[in-house]
C-alpha cells in the first residue's frame, strides 16, 4: 500500500496535513486551522462539489475539530454525505457524524432515516457502517426506530454484522435498560454463536448484565468455564492469537465474568478451579499479554471462593511481578498483592522489601499504587508510620484531586487507628495545615470535639495537658502565612475555649493573636466570626475569674469595625461581645461557663423559672396565657412577650426563634444516648449544609453565644471507633469505617472460616492479624510490640470488646528509628541481587543486537546516497533483530518487553503473522525509501524540523 499522498488526495489536502505536521507550536497550529476554517466555510457550500472532494472536505473538518476548533458549520455536509451511494464516502460520512455529534444533537433526526435504510442494505459493509453509527448516535428516544431491524440482524449470515448488532443491542441496554429488557436473552443465545468473534463480543454485554445481577446468570457458569477451557486449549482460530497466547482478550473477559459469578459462591467457584489452574500453568509469563492474563487470574482467584492451590499459584505470580525490573509488572504486582492480602495475608510479609522499594520509587504512579496498598493494610501498629508517609507525600504533590483523596484517607486512618489523642491532634494539624481546604468540615468539628472531650472524665490532668499542648502548637502555627480557613476556625475555637485555661498565656496574649487572625484574614467572614466569639469567651472567662478586663486597642478597633459590619452575623457577635463585657461576673459565669462546650444544655420546656413573674403579672391584672391551640383569632402576642421578657432578662438578644431549639433537641435525644458525649459545639451558624437539617434557621439568636449551644445532629463518632453515623456524613467513608471497625472487633479467631464474599469484613479480619507481623517487620524494629489498650483512650473504652485492638505507643524516637530502618532496607534488597536473574533473562542478546546493527547499516549503505538518518528502520528489523536495542529508543524498557517474546517466538513459527508478513515485505527498506522520496516530492523535507514524523512507529 502506498501511504504517502495517496493517489486521490489533492495537493491542497496534502499541503494542509503537511503544514499541520510541521507546525512547531500550538499557536502556529491554531493559525493554520483558523485559516483552514475560513477556506472551508467558503468552499464547502459551493454547488456541485464532486464526492471525492467532499469527502476530503469532511476529513478536513475532522482535523479542525480534532485540533480543538469548532467545525459546526460543516456538520450538515457530513450528515448529507451519509446518504451517498459509494460505500467509502458513506462510511466517511458516518464516521464524521459520530465524531462531531452527540446523540442528542438536533441533526441526528436527519440521520435516523438513512440508518434505517442502510440497515436493510444488501451490502453487509453498508449494514456494518450503519450499525457503527447506531452505537454512537441512537439515544433513548430513537431506539424504537431501529430496534426491530437490529434484532433481525442478530441472525444475519455475516458474522461481522451479527457482532455489531450485538453491540448495538448492548448500547441500547446501556442507554435504556428498560427498553430492551425483554431482549436480553439474545445475549445468552449469541454466546453460542459459531463465530468466536461474535461470541467474544457477546461477553461485553454479558459482563455488564452479570455485574448488575449475578444470581440470574449462575446457570451460565458451566458454559463460561467450558468456553474458557476451549480457548485455553487453543480451539479457537489462530487469528485471535497474540504472541502465542490463544485469544487472550477473550480469556481476560471470561476471567472477569467468572470472578463475578464465583464471588461468595462456593459451588460455582469449584467449577472454575481446574480451568483457572490450567491457565496459571499454561500462561507464558515472558510476554506482556501472558502477564495480563496471569494478572486477571489473580483477580479472579482473589474474588472467588478461596482455593489453597490457586492462592499459591497467585502468590507465585505476584512475587515474580514484584521482583521484576519492569515498573509495569511491579505496579500490577502491588495491585494484585492488595487484592490477595484480603484472603491470604501472610503473603504480604514476603514482599515487604519490594513494597518499600516501590514506595521509595520516584515513579509517581507506582508510589500511589503502593500507598493504596498500605492504606489497605493499615492497622494500629503501623498507622503512625503509614500516615506519616502519606502526609509527607500529600505535602509534596500539587494535584488537588489526589491531594483530597489522600488527605481524607489520612483522616480516616488516623480516626480509626490513632494510638493516642496527642498523635491524633498532631496528625490532624498537619493535614489541616497542608490540605485544610480540601478536608470535610466535619473533620474539623470532630477535632474540636476531641480537644474538648479530652481523654475522659477520669483524667483531668491529661486533658489539660492535651489542651495546653494544642494551644501552644496553635499559637506557633499561627505564625505561618496563609493557613486554610478550616484550620483557622479550629485554632480560633481552641484558643477561645482553652487559650487562657492553664494560665500559661494571659488574656492579652491570646486576644492579641485572635485580633491578628481577624485582621490577617479579613476577607474570611467565617474565620472572623470564630475569632470574635473566641474573644468573647476569653473576656468572659476573665470576668468570671474576677479579673479586670482591658480591651486591647486593636481589639477595640476590630469591634468598632464589626459593629458596623455588613454581615449581620458578625455585627451580632460584636454586639453580643459588648453586652457580655458589660455584665457582672455571676451573670457571665452562667451564660459562659468555662470548658462547657460538651455539657448538655437543659432546656426547660415549661419555662418554669418564669412562674413567679407570671404570677406577679396576673395579680396585676394581666390576661392568663392561653395555649396556641385553644386560641382563636387572637394575636399571639402574649406568647412573644413572654419570650421577649425572658430574653431581656438574660441578655437582650433576638427573640423570635426561641422556640425552635426544643424540637431539635428532642429529636436528638436518642442520638445523644447512643453516642453519649458526642456533642459538638456549634460555633458557626453559617453553614447551610450543617444546619439545614436542624430546622433551626436562626441558630445564632437563641442562646446569645453560639458556643453555648450544643449540637447533637450530624455528629459522628469521629474519634476512636465509629459508632453511630448520622445520615449526613458521607456514605462512602462511613461504610468503610464501619466495616473496618467491625473487623477489628471480630478478632482473628474467625480467620479460617471466613469466606471471600464482597462483604469485606471477614477478609479484613485476617489482615488485621497477619498484618501486625508484617508491618512490624515491614517498618523495622519494634516488631514484637506489647499490646496494651491505650490508657484513657476514650474510644477504646467505649466498647470494651474492641480492646483487642492494640495500641502501640511509640515514642517519637522509636518512630524515627523505624523510619531510618525502613529507609535502609531498599539497599538490602539490591544486595540480595534477586532481580538480576530476571533482568538478565530480559536482556537482549548482544549478538543479536550486533546483527541487527549490521543489518541496518547494510541497508543504509545499500541505499544510494540517502541520508541514513531518514531511513526508517522497518518493522522487520524489530521483529527479527530486536531493533529496539539497536536504536536505543528511549522506550527500550517497553520495547524490550515486547520484542523479547518475538525473539523467543522466532523458532516456533506457529502463530507468527509477523514472520510471514516480514518475508513478504523483504524489500522493506526500499519501501521506506520510496516513501521518503515521495514525501520529498511533495515538498516535505524530512530533515527539517520534525524528522520524527517520518520514522516508522515500530522502528
Amino acid at each position: 500500500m502506498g501511504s504517502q499522498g495517496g493517489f486521490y488526495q489533492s495537493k491542497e489536502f496534502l499541503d494542509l496535513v503537511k503544514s499541520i505536521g510541521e507546525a512547531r507550536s500550538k499557536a502556529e497550529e491554531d493559525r493554520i486551522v483558523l485559516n483552514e476554517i475560513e477556506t472551508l466555510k467558503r468552499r464547502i457550500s459551493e454547488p456541485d462539489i464532486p464526492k471525492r472532494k467532499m469527502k476530503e472536505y469532511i476529513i478536513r473538518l475532522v482535523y479542525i475539530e480534532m485540533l480543538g476548533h469548532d467545525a459546526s458549520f460543516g456538520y450538515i455536509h457530513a450528515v448529507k454525505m451519509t446518504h451517498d451511494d459509494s460505500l467509502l464516502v458513506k462510511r466517511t460520512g458516518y464516521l464524521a457524524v459520530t465524531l462531531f455529534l452527540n446523540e442528542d444533537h438536533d441533526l441526528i433526526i436527519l440521520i435516523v432515516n438513512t440508518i434505517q435504510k442502510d440497515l436493510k442494505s444488501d451490502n453487509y459493509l453498508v449494514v456494518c457502517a450503519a450499525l457503527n453509527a447506531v452505537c454512537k448516535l441512537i439515544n433513548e428516544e430513537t431506539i424504537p426506530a431501529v430496534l426491530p431491524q437490529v434484532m433481525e440482524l442478530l441472525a444475519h449470515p455475516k458474522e461481522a454484522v451479527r457482532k455489531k448488532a450485538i453491540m448495538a443491542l448492548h448500547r441500547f441496554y446501556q442507554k435504556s435498560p428498560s427498553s430492551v429488557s425483554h431482549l436480553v436473552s439474545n445475549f445468552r443465545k449469541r454466546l453460542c454463536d459459531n463465530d468466536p468473534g461474535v461470541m467474544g463480543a457477546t461477553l461485553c454485554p454479558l459482563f455488564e448484565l452479570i455485574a448488575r445481577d449475578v444470581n440470574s446468570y449462575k446457570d451460565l457458569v458451566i458454559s463460561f468455564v467450558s468456553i474458557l477451557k476451549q480457548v485455553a486449549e487453543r480451539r479457537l482460530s489462530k487469528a485471535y492469537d497474540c504472541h502465542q497466547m490463544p485469544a487472550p482478550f477473550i480469556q481476560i473477559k471470561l476471567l472477569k465474568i467468572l470472578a463475578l459469578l464465583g464471588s461468595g459462591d462456593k459451588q460455582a467457584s469449584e467449577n472454575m478451579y481446574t480451568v483457572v489452574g490450567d491457565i496459571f500453568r499454561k500462561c507464558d509469563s515472558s510476554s506482556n499479554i501472558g502477564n495480563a492474563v496471569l494478572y486477571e487470574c489473580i483477580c479472579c482467584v482473589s474474588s472467588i471462593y478461596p482455593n489453597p492451590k490457586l492462592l499459591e499459584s497467585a502468590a507465585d505470580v505476584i512475587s515474580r511481578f514484584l521482583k521484576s525490573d519492569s515498573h509495569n509488572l511491579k505496579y500490577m504486582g502491588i495491585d494484585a498483592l492488595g487484592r490477595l492480602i484480603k484472603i491470604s495475608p501472610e503473603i504480604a510479609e514476603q514482599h515487604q522489601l519490594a513494597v518499600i522499594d516501590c514506595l521509595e520509587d520516584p515513579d509517581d504512579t507506582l508510589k500511589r499504587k503502593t500507598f493504596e496498598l498500605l492504606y489497605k493494610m493499615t492497622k494500629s501498629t503501623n498507622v503512625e508510620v503509614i500516615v506519616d508517609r502519606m502526609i509527607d507525600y500529600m505535602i509534596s504533590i500539587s494535584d488537588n484531586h489526589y491531594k483530597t483523596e489522600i488527605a481524607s484517607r489520612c483522616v480516616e486512618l488516623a480516626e480509626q487507628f490513632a494510638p493516642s489523642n496527642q498523635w491524633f491532634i498532631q496528625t490532624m494539624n498537619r493535614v489541616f495545615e497542608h490540605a485544610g481546604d480540601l478536608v470535610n468540615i466535619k473533620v474539623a468539628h470532630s477535632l474540636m470535639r476531641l480537644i474538648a472531650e479530652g481523654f475522659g472524665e477520669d483524667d483531668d490532668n491529661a486533658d489539660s495537658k492535651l489542651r495546653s499542648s494544642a494551644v501552644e502548637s496553635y499559637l506557633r502555627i499561627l505564625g505561618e502565612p496563609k493557613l486554610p480557613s478550616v484550620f483557622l476556625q479550629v485554632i480560633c475555637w481552641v484558643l477561645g475555649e482553652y487559650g487562657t485555661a492553664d494560665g500559661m498565656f494571659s488574656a492579652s496574649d491570646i486576644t492579641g493573636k485572635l485580633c491578628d487572625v481577624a485582621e490577617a484574614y479579613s476577607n474570611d467572614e467565617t474565620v472572623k466570626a470564630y475569632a470574635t466569639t473566641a474573644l468573647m469567651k476569653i473576656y468572659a472567662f476573665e470576668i468570671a475569674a474576677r479579673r479586670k478586663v482591658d480591651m486591647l486597642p486593636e481589639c477595640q478597633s476590630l469591634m468598632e469595625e464589626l459593629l458596623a459590619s455588613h454581615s449581620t452575623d458578625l455585627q451580632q457577635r460584636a454586639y453580643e461581645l459588648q453586652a457580655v463585657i458589660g455584665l457582672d461576673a455571676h451573670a457571665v459565669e452562667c451564660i459562659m461557663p468555662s470548658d462547657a462546650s460538651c455539657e448538655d444544655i437543659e432546656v426547660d420546656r415549661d419555662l418554669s423559672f418564669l412562674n413567679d413573674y407570671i404570677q406577679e403579672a396576673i395579680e396585676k391584672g394581666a390576661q392568663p396565657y392561653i395555649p396556641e391551640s385553644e386560641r382563636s383569632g387572637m394575636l399571639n402576642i402574649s406568647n412573644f412577650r413572654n419570650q421577649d421578657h425572658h430574653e431581656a432578662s438574660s441578655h437582650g438578644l433576638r427573640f423570635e426563634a426561641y422556640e425552635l431549639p426544643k424540637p431539635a433537641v428532642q429529636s436528638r435525644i436518642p442520638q445523644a444516648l447512643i453516642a453519649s458525649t458526642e456533642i459538638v459545639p456549634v460555633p458557626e451558624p453559617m453553614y447551610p449544609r450543617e444546619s439545614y437539617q436542624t430546622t433551626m434557621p436562626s441558630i445564632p439568636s437563641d442562646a446569645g453565644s453560639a458556643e453555648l449551644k450544643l449540637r447533637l445532629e450530624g455528629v459522628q463518632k469521629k474519634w476512636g471507633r465509629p459508632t453511630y453515623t448520622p445520615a449526613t456524613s458521607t456514605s462512602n467513608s462511613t461504610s468503610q469505617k464501619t466495616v473496618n471497625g467491625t473487623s477489628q472487633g471480630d478478632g482473628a479467631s474467625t480467620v479460617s472460616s471466613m469466606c471471600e464474599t464482597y462483604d469485606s469484613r471477614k477478609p479484613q479480619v485476617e489482615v488485621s492479624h497477619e498484618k501486625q507481623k508484617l508491618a512490624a517487620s515491614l517498618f523495622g524494629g519494634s516488631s514484637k510490640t506489647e499490646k496494651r489498650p491505650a490508657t484513657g483512650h476514650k474510644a477504646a473504652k467505649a466498647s470494651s470488646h474492641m480492646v483487642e485492638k492494640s495500641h502501640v505507643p511509640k515514642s517519637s524516637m522509636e518512630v524515627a528509628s523505624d523510619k531510618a530502618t525502613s529507609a535502609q532496607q531498599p539497599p538490602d534488597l539490591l544486595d540480595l541481587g534477586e532481580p538480576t536473574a530476571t533482568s538478565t533473562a530480559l536482556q537482549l542478546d548482544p549478538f543479536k543486537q550486533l546483527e541487527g546493527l549490521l543489518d541496518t547499516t547494510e541497508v543504509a549503505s545499500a541505499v544510494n546516497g540517502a541520508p541514513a538518518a531518514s531511513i526508517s528502520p522497518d518493522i522487520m528489523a524489530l521483529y527479527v533483530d530486536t531493533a529496539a536495542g539497536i536504536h536505543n529508543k528511549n522506550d527500550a524498557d517497553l520495547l524490550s518487553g515486547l520484542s523479547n517474546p518475538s525473539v523467543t517466538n522466532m523458532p516456533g513459527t506457529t502463530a507468527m503473522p509477523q514472520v510471514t508478513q516480514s518475508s513478504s515485505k523483504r524489500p522493506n527498506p526500499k519501501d521506506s525509501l520510496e516513501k521518503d522520496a515521495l514525501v520529498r516530492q511533495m515538498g516535505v523535507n524530512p530533515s527539517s524540523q520534525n524528522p520524527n514524523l517520518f520514522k516508522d512507529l515500530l522502528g
Partner: protein
Amino acid sequence: MGIRFILMVNKQGQTRLAQYYEWLTLEERRALEGEIVRKCLARNEQQCSFVEHRNYKIVYRRYASLFFLVGVDNDENELAILEFIHLLVETMDRHFGNVCELDIMFHLEKAHFMLEEMVMNGSIVETSKANILSPIQLMDKAS
C-alpha cells in the same frame, strides 16, 4: 464502559487522532488532552506506562515519535490495554506497511475505521487483524 478514549499524540503534544467513547464537549476535550498529554510526556521510559488521572487511568505507549494513550476505567487490566495498543499498531502496520505518523495523518479515516472495528461501546470486540482489515480492504477495492 472500559475504554473511555483513545488518543494518538506526537512528541510535541499535537493530537494526531482522537476517539472518545463518552461524549465530551470540544472544550473538555481540549482541556483533557492538554492535561494528560503533559502528564504522560513528562514521564521517562523506566516509569510505568500507566498514569492515574482523576478517577480513571491512562495507559500509554510510545512508538517512535507517536504516543498512544488510552483512557480506561479503574478496573481495566492495564497490561491487556498495552497489548491492545500494540495490536492496533501492528494492524496499522500490516495495512500501511511501516506505518508512521504521516500515514495516520494522511489516512485519518482509515485509522478510525480500524478503531471502529476493534472497539465498540468502549469494549474491545475484535482482535483478529484479518477481521479488522477486511472491510477496509474491500472498500479500497471497491473504490
